[in-house]
């Protein structure tokens, strides 16, 4: 049977939890293990409680687990907060108070010191001995890796990569790491992996934000304008890393209204352009979205969801914006809405969103969430860049008479040939007002009808591009429907339930608007009941399905506490729904 270990490293913000986690993750990854990791942190820079939870396995994993096998507690709060999540055989490594403080804090620790699954390790003391308290993280990583059975050489490799430019620092870290290794070498831990001495990594280790940035590069995005907002900022930070290698400019705007208008301007001028934000910023972009709609300017907008309303929980996850982004901005115009389920699909979605946005000259919205963005994932597939970027633009050379060019020529498909301004004799004019074919304001009835119909005519072509729900045991009696990042947890829950002989499958919706009505109806028509699983309180996907197909969900399993689903949790809740049915 496959091994599946969850390691949680917890402490205060600013204590370097991510450093510990990163080292562990990279060692495991380099050795050819599979893993994913979630980051849980508060909206503050220091203090409080935060943790990184790494799930390591010798088979691919796509969601976090509920039970902790190994807890690295950099403070006692961590142990307090997570003790109820420990697996039966779980082990806690608790930082013991610094030597000089031991006396005063002794009283505080009697309880956990007595628990038999708690091992105190002097992470910070050992670090100090090795050359400085700053290496506490290395000690902790070392201890954890020992328990997992990692050979020290692999650990050393990663430390060497990390500190390759600073010899003395590297040396100290190796000492620190070794002392962590040694500190627990006699501690028993049942979940050791078989470490392949010559293991090769099974793919790349990437965060959601990173993949979104790489996808944008692969789509030939040139301008990315944004205003910082968690959990989307990372996308832009990662893009900014490439400013001196590729023709991509990341521009921090004065606000989100500016950001969306900037990318509309940039796209109008001829380059592919992106913005990324979260719900609050997206709210501010609603008017600009309509501007892209009426001027038929392609733009791509990533809305990385977090719980609201308003500021809500800035560093937590949610899926509360689906119906909002579908209907955002006054009146009606076509748009795409996608919600990728994985890093692979996210990379592809970026390319597809830019492509389709230009093909149909409409805005494309990509919904992700904090869980997806901030987690560490493995992609086991090459991120392949397109050979060519089809731009769907027209030039004087394509026209019989450039002087008669009309930006909004009525066509059957609704898509008009798109020329770029100042690139030839064809003049390009657009307006936020209703306009005639030449882009001039017009209030005429016939023209208005033509333009509304022209814009809406695109929906037919767009809808054909939409993929129906991805079916996982789709022929089953019961189906669980979800969208976006929750797919991994849902599938795993389905696996669990099927292993208990439940006749259940899953549908994953990544292409949400124009809603793939027919394909969705087909996928749903044979099941006895379907249940939705979403990170919101009203089951927005469920409502959308009913609105678009008439099919009603039997029950919605909703979780809105800002924390990601685990397969166990879903399986448990589905089970009780199924009990209700029978």
């Amino acid at each position: 049977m496959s091994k599946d270990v969850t390691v949680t490293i917890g402490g205060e913000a600013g204590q370097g939890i991510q450093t510990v986690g990163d080292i562990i993750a990279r060692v495991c990854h380099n050795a050819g293990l599979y893993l994913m990791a979630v980051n849980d942190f508060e909206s503050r820079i220091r203090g409080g409680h935060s943790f990184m939870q790494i799930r390591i396995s010798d088979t691919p994993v796509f969601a976090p687990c509920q039970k902790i096998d190994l807890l690295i507690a950099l403070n006692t709060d961590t142990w307090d907060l997570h003790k109820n999540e420990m697996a039966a055989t779980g082990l806690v490594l608790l930082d013991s108070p610094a030597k000089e403080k031991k006396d005063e804090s002794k009283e505080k620790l009697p309880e956990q010191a007595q628990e038999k699954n708690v091992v105190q390790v002097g992470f910070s003391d050992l670090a100090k001995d090795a050359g400085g308290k700053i290496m506490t993280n290395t000690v902790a990583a070392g201890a954890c890796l020992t328990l997992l059975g990692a050979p020290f050489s692999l650990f050393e490799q990663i430390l060497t990569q990390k500190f390759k430019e600073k010899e003395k620092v590297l040396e100290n870290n190796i000492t620190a790491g070794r002392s962590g290794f040694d500190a627990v070498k006699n501690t028993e831990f049942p979940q050791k992996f078989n470490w392949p001495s010559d293991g090769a990594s099974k793919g790349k280790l990437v965060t959601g934000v990173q993949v979104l940035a790489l996808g944008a590069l692969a789509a030939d995005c040139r301008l990315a304008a944004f205003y910082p907002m968690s959990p989307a900022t990372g996308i832009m930070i990662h893009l900014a890393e490439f400013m001196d290698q590729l023709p991509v400019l990341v521009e921090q705007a004065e606000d989100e209204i500016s950001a969306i208008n900037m990318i509309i301007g940039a796209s109008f001028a001829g380059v592919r352009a992106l913005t990324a934000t979260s719900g609050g910023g997206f709210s501010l972009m609603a008017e600009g979205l309509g501007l892209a709609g009426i001027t038929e300017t392609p733009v791509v907008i990533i809305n990385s969801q977090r719980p609201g309303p308003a500021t809500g929980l800035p560093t937590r996850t949610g899926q509360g914006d689906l119906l909002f982004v579908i209907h955002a901005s006054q009146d009606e115009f076509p748009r795409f809405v996608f919600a990728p389920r994985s890093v692979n699909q996210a990379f592809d979605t970026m390319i597809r969103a830019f492509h389709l946005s230009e093909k149909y000259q409409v805005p494309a919205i990509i919904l992700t969430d904090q869980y997806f963005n901030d987690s560490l994932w493995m992609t086991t597939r090459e991120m392949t860049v397109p050979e060519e970027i089809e731009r769907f633009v027209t030039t004087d050379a394509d026209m019989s008479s450039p002087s008669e060019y009309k930006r909004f020529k009525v066509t059957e498909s609704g898509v008009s040939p798109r020329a770029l301004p100042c690139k030839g004799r064809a003049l390009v004019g657009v307006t936020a007002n209703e306009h005639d074919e030449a882009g001039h304001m017009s209030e005429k009835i016939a023209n208005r009808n033509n333009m509304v119909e022209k814009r809406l005519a695109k929906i037919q072509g767009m809808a054909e591009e939409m993929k129906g729900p991805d079916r996982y045991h789709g022929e089953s009696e019961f189906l669980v429907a979800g969208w976006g990042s929750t797919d991994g947890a849902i599938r795993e829950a389905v696996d669990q339930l099927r292993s208990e002989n439940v006749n259940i499958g899953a549908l994953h919706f990544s292409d949400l608007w124009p809603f793939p009505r027919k394909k969705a109806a087909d996928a749903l028509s044979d099941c006895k009941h379907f249940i939705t699983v979403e990170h919101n309180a009203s089951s927005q996907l469920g409502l959308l399905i009913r609105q678009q197909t008439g099919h009603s969900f039997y029950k919605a399993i909703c979780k809105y506490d800002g924390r990601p689903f685990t397969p166990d949790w879903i399986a448990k809740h589905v089970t009780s729904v199924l009990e209700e049915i029978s």
Partner: protein
Amino acid sequence: MSDTKQYDNDYENKWCPGCGNFGILNAIKKSLADMQMPPEKVLMVSGIGQAAKNPHFLQCNFFHGLHGRALPVATGAKLADQDLTILVNMGDGDCYGEGGNHLLAALRRNINLTLLVHNNMVYGLTKGQASPTSRRGFVTKAQPGGVAYDACNPLTLALSQGAGFVARGYCGEIQHLSRLIKEAVSYPGFSLVDILQVCISFNNVNTYQFYNDRVYKLEEETYKADDLHQAIDRAMEWEDKIPIGILYQKETRGYTQGLAPLQSGSLFSQTYDPEQVQKVISAV
């Protein structure tokens, strides 16, 4: 004198006869003609309002966007293609009201755009509410007791934020205004021309008469546009005499100059290189 006819189009003008915007439109045409900019090389960007309709009445490329949001659109276009010549038309409500935050940012960003504000001190298109530049006491249907605060001074605002080209024009002085616009367009950074514009329908205070009685040209004095304090003093003149001309000009560093991705040409002009992109991605 060059030909301004090339900028005429046959789209029906929608301004009130006698509106000060006609003078501004003519000055724009004249300056474009003088600079020998063919219509297809001009991109006009505007917000929403009477002023912002301006691009429709010119033969050129144009983007008539949202109320208040012309500057971000123009900035995006310029970042995408720094070779474009972009003029921005906005109303006073558009620019100093709804769009104030973008003006603040544009002043600092100092990207090479020319902003022409048709300042009629009133919301024209929405039928006469006070604008940020309406003077204290100005009575409208929305402000029946008169405007109860002091007017925004866009010139001192620009000066306070380090702007390198700050000028004021008047719709009744077309020659003069067209010269200002030319200077502004040739300035290699962000240039602001605030234009005193008469609205015959909703502003019966700041009329042609009002301005004709007060306006004087800085060029006709021994004024040098290189002193911030003097510029501020002139910018604050109003009751009796009102200066037009360039109030302040200095050398500045244009925004796009130093940006890494623009070193090998505009974003637009660079070509997609799948190998390079693949290399960069694979190296992650």
